[in-house]
């Protein structure tokens, strides 16, 4: 047997060698870079900053002055010089575009991080179980932080926002249904109007409810008036994202349901809506995130309160934003501390909503991925 194998192999004409060759280290020639170039780019990115820092600190220069007078000119010259070295003359515009993009983006990050850091670092000093649990009764602007907190405001925010959500979500989904599932003639106009509605100034929404219900004496300051003022602010967000979610459901599922003899409402409730579930949840969460920090409409409708209230339908009510407003306005140190604490609580709530929305947005992709994975072994049977 082995003889034959040997014989055939020797008799065969020399066939091309098809065994794999290890991939050489330089298999991506387009990524090869001139070492001098790499060094140059790194230096032009680091040196101006280093130089500025050095001179700024030795000469005890003002930080703003140092950045504007030393760093910016230096950086621009360095970038332009590197641009010319790499690309020739057109490199000036090229490198300046890159430099400007990076610096401006950095500026945005610095602003964002500054806000986040301020809230987290200052808020963390305030937050305690007492602060989260107690209300504001018997607390004056100068009362020490060991007493009193935002417990009543958390409850108020949950109740007011909860009521708004309860009304707005079905409402918003119904509008999304009108925009995607029907052939109503006014769809284009409604879509533009919803978009325009998202620009309704929140103070105007509050003013409207205030003048219609409170100034006219129909009701006193009350939680439900606040919910009402938040409704037109939340509605466009919910309707728009829900519309997008429904639109993403392939027509073939709808048609499949209709071809089985489903009335339109059943096709929607049993096929389209479940298929759009994650998108709808995102719509709800982002809608809540949109209104959870709204201050002006609540100041005009629920006002502020010190006591804990579970009653949405009578009496003024505190909420996190109005609490924040109250204590920012006081202006002394303890009050500001309390404001930071409340800001951190709001930020945490927004963060939770935001993360959940992200997780739901991603959940869809992972399930479809795991389904394709599950499919292959079965196919083999």
């Amino acid at each position, binding site marked *: 047997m082995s003889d034959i194998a040997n014989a055939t192999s020797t008799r065969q004409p020399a066939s091309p060698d098809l065994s794999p060759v290890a991939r050489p280290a330089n298999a991506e020639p387009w990524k090869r870079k001139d070492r001098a170039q790499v060094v140059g780019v790194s230096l032009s990115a680091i040196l101006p900053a280093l130089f500025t820092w050095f001179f700024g600190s030795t000469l005890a220069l003002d930080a703003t002055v140092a950045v504007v007078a030393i760093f910016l000119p230096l950086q621009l010259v360095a970038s332009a010089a590197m641009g010319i070295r790499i690309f020739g003359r057109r490199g000036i515009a090229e490198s300046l575009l890159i430099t400007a993009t990076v610096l401006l983006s950095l500026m945005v990050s610095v602003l964002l991080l500054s806000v986040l850091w301020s809230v987290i670092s200052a808020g963390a000093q305030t937050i305690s179980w007492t602060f989260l649990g107690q209300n504001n009764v018997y607390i004056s602007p100068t009362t020490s932080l060991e007493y009193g907190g935002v417990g009543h405001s958390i409850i108020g925010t949950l109740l007011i926002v909860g009521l708004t959500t309860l009304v707005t979500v079905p409402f918003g989904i119904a509008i999304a249904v009108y925009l995607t599932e029907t052939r109503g003639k006014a769809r284009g106009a409604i879509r533009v109007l919803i978009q325009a509605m998202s620009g309704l100034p929140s103070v105007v929404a509050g003013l409207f409810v205030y003048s219609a219900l409170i100034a006219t004496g129909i009701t006193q300051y009350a939680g439900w008036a606040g919910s009402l003022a938040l409704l037109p602010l939340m509605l466009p967000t919910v309707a728009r994202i829900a519309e997008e979610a429904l639109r993403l459901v392939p027509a073939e599922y709808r048609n499949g349901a209709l071809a089985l003899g*489903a009335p339109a409402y059943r096709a929607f409730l049993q096929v389209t809506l479940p298929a759009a579930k994650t998108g709808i949840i995102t719509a709800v969460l982002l809608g809540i995130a949109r209104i959870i920090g709204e201050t002006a409409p609540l100041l005009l409708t629920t006002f502020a309160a010190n006591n804990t209230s579970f009653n949405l339908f009578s009496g003024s009510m505190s909420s996190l934003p109005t609490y924040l407003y109250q204590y920012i306005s006081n202006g002394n140190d303890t009050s500001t501390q309390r404001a930071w604490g409340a800001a951190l609580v709001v930020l945490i709530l927004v963060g939770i909503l935001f993360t959940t929305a992200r997780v739901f947005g991603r959940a869809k992709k992972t399930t479809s991925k795991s389904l394709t994975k599950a499919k292959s072994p079965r196919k083999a049977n």
Partner: protein
Amino acid sequence: MAITTASALHSENVNVWFGERHVLKDVSLTFPSNQVTALIGPSGCGKSTFLRTLNRMHELIPGAGFGGRVLLDGDDIYGDGVDPVNVRIKIGMVFQKPNPFPTMTIRDNVLSGLKLSGRKTNDADELVETSLRRASIWNEVRDRLNDPALSLSGGQQQRLCIARSLAMDPQVLLMDEPCSALDPGSTRRIEETIVELSESMTIVIVTHNMQQAQRVADQTAFFLATDGNPGHVVEFGATEDIFERPRDSRTNDYVNGHFG
């Protein structure tokens, strides 16, 4: 389970417009009960559109227009006072691309028609089994009825869609190129299923595949749309005649692969 008898379907002078564009002209065909009719013709000749007029799915397209009559056992399905929902319950449809409902299990997909049309059954398990058996997929899925429908392969999904239609016990089953997205093995199994099903219902199938039409159809209609003119039926008759003794030269050219 009681199986209702198949019904004959007639189209009389069916015309179709999309907006102002006339896409189908005077199509009059007869689909006798328990027979398989194949609709063939080049792309864009209006055969799929015609199929969609047979269970009133056509009108879901914005701008759709219709003229003529479609008779199911002598009753016009476009008549005044006819609920399209009831038409679609009697006349089932299987689409080109398998479209099992993604949020439902295999079992729920089979029962989805009943739920969607708001009807009840005494024995859901039996209905699931019968329907899946008739679609020749029972043996493959009997142990995982509660798996998501999307875990099936493409060919299995399409047979699940057939089972889903069968659970509604339709008198007529419309199939719009049901095998165009499938591999040869799945295609063969679905063709066998079609032949078996024709014992209990009337079947109309749109296909691009000449061999498929010859294998499954009792009669065949050849559609053609020539530049600018609306689509129409060039020739209609027994499948054998259309493929072996076509009367029209254009039919001859098409079935012998000279164009299209």
